[in-house]
Each structure stands twice: as C-alpha cells, then as structure tokens.
C-alpha cells in the first residue's frame, strides 16, 4: 500500500473518531441546554398562570367575587383567551385537580366560561403519576396521551389543589435539537472531506520527492548511473526530505565520478597491459637475438681460431725448422705472417669481449670512484711512470651505482689512450665529475694531440684507428668497448677536443638503479604513448619538486 494512502486513511479515521466524539459531546450539551431552556420557558408560563390564580384568589378574599368558583372561572377564562390567541397549538396549558379530575384541557373542554365537567371521570394521568406530582409539587414528566408521547411541566397551586401544566409533544420539544444534530453532522462530513483533501495534497507534496529519491536509488542500483542522466533531484526544501534528496544527489554524483574514473582506470590498465605485452615480446625478441649473437660469436671464435692456431703453429715450425734455409726476405715474410696472426688473435679477442659486455652483466654495486681510480692508476703504473704522466683527480668524487669491473675498463681504456697517444713532454690527465639531477657526468681530459671534429664519432667505431698502425699498438677496439659499457649503463659518451691542445671524453651514468637497468620512468612511457604532452610532464615534475 502506498504511503500517501496509508497516511490519508489514518488521518481520516482520526478525524472521523474525533468529530463523532465532538459531536456527541456537543449534542449532549446542546440538548441539555435546550431542555433546560424549554423547562424554564414553560415554568415561567406556569408561574404566570399561578400568579393569575393567586390574584383572582385575593380578589375573592377581598370580597370582589362572591364565591371561590368565580375566581376559578376567571382564571379559566384568562387561560382560554390566552390559548385562543396562541398561534402554536402544539404547546398548550391545561389544568387538573390533584385527584386527577380535569379542570381545563382543550381536548376535553372548550375553555368555556363555565366550569363544566363534560368529560367527567376521564383522567390524563394515572394515580402513580398524580402521587408523584403531589409529592414533587412542581417539575416535569413525560407521558402518553392519545397515543402520542408528550412532555409537560407542572406546578401545584395548593390553595385550590389545582395542577397547572404546560405540555407539548416530545417531537416538538426535540425539533431544534434534531436540527442542530443535522447541522453538526453536515459540518462533520464537510470537515472530513476537507481534511482528506488536505491530507492527500500534503502527503502528495511530501511523498512525491520520496518517490523521486526511490526512483533515483533504483536507477543507481540497476547501474544506470551515466553522466547524461545526472539531473539532480530538486526538492526545494531544507527539511529531512530535502536533506535526503541532497544526500542522494551527492551520492549519485560521487558514484558517477567513481564510475567514470573506474572506466578510465580500466582503459589505462588495458593500455598498460598492451604495452607490457609489447615489451615482453620485445624482450623475448632481444633474448632471441642475444642467443643468436651468442651462437654467432661462439662459431666465429671457434672457427676463426682453429685456422689461426694452425697458421701460428706452422709459421712457428717454419721459423724454427727452416730458419737457416731461408734468406732474410723469407724470414721477414714469416715474421709478418706471425705478427698478423697475433694481431688477428687480438681482434678476435676484442670482438668476443665486445659481444660479452652485453651478454654478461655483473650485478650493480656501490662503487667509490676515488678507490676505483686508485686501482686504475695501479694497473697502469708502469706506463704512467714511463711517460711521467701527471694525474689530477678532482676531490670528493662520488660513490656511484655501477658495474665495477666494467667501469674500471672504461677508465683504464681512457687513461691508456690518453697516455699512449700523448705527444707532450709533460703529459697530464684530469678526471672529474659534474653531478646533475638524474645522472653523473664524468670527464677524462688529456693534453694530448687532440682529435679533429670529423672523427668525433668515428673513434667509437670498432677497429677504427686514427694513428698509423706501426705508431701505436692496439686493435682500435678500446673506445668501442668503452662506449658499449657506458651504453650498457644507459649513459652517453661524447668527445670534445681542440687539435694540438686537449681531448676530453665525457660520459654519463644515471643515478637511479631503474634507469641503469633501462626501466623507463612512468612519465617517459606516457610521453611516448602521447597520453600527455611534454608541458604536462614538466609541470607535474615541477609540482613534485615543490612538494619536496
């Protein structure tokens, strides 16, 4: 059952009960009042009649009338006249004697001038009633006469033993009461109808918003929370229902936002999964390539070394066994064969070394650069002393995360190059580090011959040499190895130089472990996928910095 109906019914029942209660009480009070009023009215009339009788009785005593009968007749006449003048025949007076004999009554005598008793022996009241009247002297009573219920007020005039009565029908007496009851009933019904209408109107006004709230809640429950359906419920009041509507609005708005952000999140997760899968595929591919490279270098090393060993061995045998049978030129050729086989061996070793850098990664560790540089100096001690090289190492070099063995190779290679190619009488090597936001920038500067700009990139290519072969030993793989190691650390390497004055090798090593391991920052990934602009990223990073 609907709430509005329930409220209406309850209200109607309450109103009906109250109006019945009110009506009965008011009817009781009113009828009682009417009754008293009637009684008083009738009694007044009787008193007038009794006063009349008394006056006539006085006149008799004063001697105006000859007999008592005459005064009685006068009273009778007066009443007769009064009755005749009376317009309302329903109310009339009559007189009986205390013994029940009728003195004057319109139904039994015509109020004639004479005191005649036409209806001798007839009684209006029975003896019990007469006894009651005599005892009471004055009062009221109900009785039946000629089949009609009647009501009368009576008073005894004792000197004559007359009972004066004024009578009317019960129906007449109750006429005004019935009218009042009818009016009251009408008013009650009107009140009930009016109140029902008011209740219906009010409950509609208050229950309709509840219906709206219910509908919205059902919508939310069935998952119909969509941005286009977000018209907030407008109640316009600040009562409990208004608060309820406000709460539901807020809830559905929150829910909508949550739903929207959920959708976005799901999308993002999907994107990321795709990205991850792509990365996985890529990693697999790389692994495959590495494996192939591994096999390749293995085959190369095995297959190239096999004939090389024979070349070396047999040229050695030739040199040992046939030295005497060969002339100077022949021995020169053999020497060249042996020198080249040695060189080829070195090239193969370097090749293997380069391929090994990527394949075999040592775990990253915290390395104190000053300690590392001391070790480098020890390893190159002979060369440093021989050429009297001055090595200047910047103070407070950092402690960084790196592959210790490989980074040592970097410094050894750069140092030995700086020493090897130096043409100055007082060779000098300077090492330092600039600490940047995300990375360390190291430099190794020498006062050697310098490198022409056109060769800046070429020097890092494998087996590239700038000097003549006979001038400097080495295969030309050193810088390639260095570059490879720096790239393995996800750093960069470049060279700055002025011919005849100096050469500076710069290289960077990221600070973060994740960066060294090649894992991108989330910002970079988003940027790559064009989910954000560079400006967004910059702003976000600035905001982050401000937060500390």
């Amino acid at each position, binding site marked *: 059952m609907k709430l509005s109906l329930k409220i209406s019914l309850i209200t109607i029942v309450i109103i009906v009960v109250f109006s019945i209660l009110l009506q009965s009480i008011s009817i009781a009070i009113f009828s009682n009042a009417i009754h008293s009023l009637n009684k008083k009215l009738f009694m007044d009339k009787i008193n007038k009649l009794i006063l009349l009788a008394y006056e006539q009785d006085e006149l008799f005593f004063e001697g105006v009338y000859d007999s008592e009968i005459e005064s009685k007749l006068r009273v009778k006449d007066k009443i007769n006249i009064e009755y005749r003048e009376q317009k309302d025949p329903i109310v009339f007076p009559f007189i009986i004697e205390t013994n029940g004999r009728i003195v004057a009554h319109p139904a039994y005598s015509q109020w004639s001038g004479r005191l005649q008793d036409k209806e001798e022996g007839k009684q209006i009241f029975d003896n019990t009633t007469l006894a009651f009247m005599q005892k009471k002297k004055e009062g009221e009573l109900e009785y039946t006469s000629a089949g009609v219920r009647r009501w009368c007020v009576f008073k005894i005039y004792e000197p004559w033993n007359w009972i004066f009565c004024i009578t009317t029908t019960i129906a007449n007496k109750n006429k005004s009461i019935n009218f009042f009851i009818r009016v009251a009933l009408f008013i009650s019904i009107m009140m009930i109808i009016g109140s029902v209408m008011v209740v219906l109107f009010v409950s509609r006004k208050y229950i309709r918003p509840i219906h709206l709230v219910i509908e919205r809640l059902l919508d939310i429950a069935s998952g119909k929370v969509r941005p286009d359906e977000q018209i907030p419920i407008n109640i316009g009041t600040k009562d409990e229902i208004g608060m309820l509507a406000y709460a539901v609005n807020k809830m559905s708005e929150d829910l909508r936002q949550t739903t929207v952000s959920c959708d976005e999140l799901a999308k993002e997760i999907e994107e990321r999964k795709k990205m991850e899968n792509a990365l996985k595929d890529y990693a697999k591919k790389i692994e495959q390539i590495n494996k192939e490279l591994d096999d390749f270098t293995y085959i190369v090393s095995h297959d190239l070394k096999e004939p090389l060993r024979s070349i070396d*061995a047999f040229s050695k045998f030739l040199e040992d066994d046939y030295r005497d049978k060969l002339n100077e030129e022949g021995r020169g050729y053999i020497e060249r064969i042996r020198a080249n086989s040695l060189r080829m061996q070195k090239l193969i070793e370097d090749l293997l070394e380069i391929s090994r850098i990527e394949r075999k990664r040592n775990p990253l560790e915290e390395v104190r650069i000053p300690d590392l540089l001391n070790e480098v100096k020890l390893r190159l001690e002979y060369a440093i002393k021989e050429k009297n090289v001055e090595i200047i190492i910047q103070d407070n070099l950092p402690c960084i995360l790196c592959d210790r063995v490989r980074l040592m190779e970097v410094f050894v290679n750069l140092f030995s190059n700086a020493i090897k190619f130096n043409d100055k009488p007082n060779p000098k090597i300077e090492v330092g580090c600039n600490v940047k936001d995300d990375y360390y920038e190291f430099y190794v500067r020498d006062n050697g011959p310098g490198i022409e700009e056109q060769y800046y990139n070429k020097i890092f290519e494998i087996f590239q040499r700038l000097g003549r072969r006979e001038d400097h030993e080495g295969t030309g793989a050193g810088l390639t190895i260095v570059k490879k190691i720096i790239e393995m650390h996800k750093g960069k390497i470049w060279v700055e130089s002025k011919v005849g004055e100096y050469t500076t090798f710069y290289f960077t090593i990221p600070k973060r472990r994740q960066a060294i391991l090649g894992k991108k920052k989330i910002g970079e990934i988003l940027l790559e996928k064009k989910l954000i602009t560079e400006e967004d990223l910059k702003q976000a990073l600035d905001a982050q910095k401000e937060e500390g």
Partner: protein
Amino acid sequence: MAEKTKFTKILLVEDNPDDIFIIERAIREAKIINQLFITRDGQEGWDFLKHQGKYSDVASSPKPGLILLDINLPKLNGLELLKMIKEDPDLKRIPTVMLTVSRRDEDILKGYNHGCNSFIQKPVEFEKFVETVRQIGLYWGIINVESPNNDSDNDIIE
C-alpha cells in the same frame, strides 16, 4: 723435470689433423715421455677404449692414463663421449681433459657435469700451447695421484 716425468699413455681424440700435428709436436717440445694414441672421432675413441672394431687387439689399444678430448668431433661429439666414459665402470677413473677453443659457459658447465677432470682452452699461440701441454703432463703425470685400483676395478667394485 724430464727425468721425473712418468711414462704416460695418452689417448688423444681429435679430428683436426693440424691440431694433431701441433699437439704431437707440443708434447715433444714439452719433453713429456709418453706414448700417444690418436683417434680421429668420438666413435673411434670409444672403440679404442672398449677394444672394439679395429682396436679389438688389446695389446695395441692399452688402457690410457690420460684422455685428451676435443669437444667438436664428428659422429660422437666430445661431450657425449665424455658422458659415456664417465658412466662406464671400467673407464670412469681415467683422468679426462677437455680441449676446446670455446669459452662458452654452457659447454664448460656440461663438461664438468659429465665428470670431466679438467677443462682447457687451446691457446692460439704455439708457445703457449707447448706450455699448456707441459702443464698437463706435469699435473696428470707427476703431481696427480692416480686411483690405486686403476687396473683392478672390477675386483674391488664387484
């Protein structure tokens, strides 16, 4: 040193004739007193050890004191032959040295897993090769104490 070197029977399993020549010469230059038996592939090596096929004459194919085994061999490769040797109750105590140009971890690991006693990379330079062979001879011929029941395996085991 030469005087102290014991007489050692060495079985070389090697397919490359150049390498055979080089090893022979290296052994000679290292002055290891020995008797070198040469087989050209894995199967031949196995036949020699088990006195099968053309090596059915036990006198011409004696049990060696050292096996030098190349990894890349035709028919039966070095690692397979090594596995068979080390699983054979008669042969498993013979010191087996793998000779290889490879430094592939995978091969080295497999070699040790199959029970090889040493893993040696063939040096490219002949001088180093001679030195290596000298070391092998020194170690397996003199320093290393042989298994006491080398010739009477079965008695003890069974």
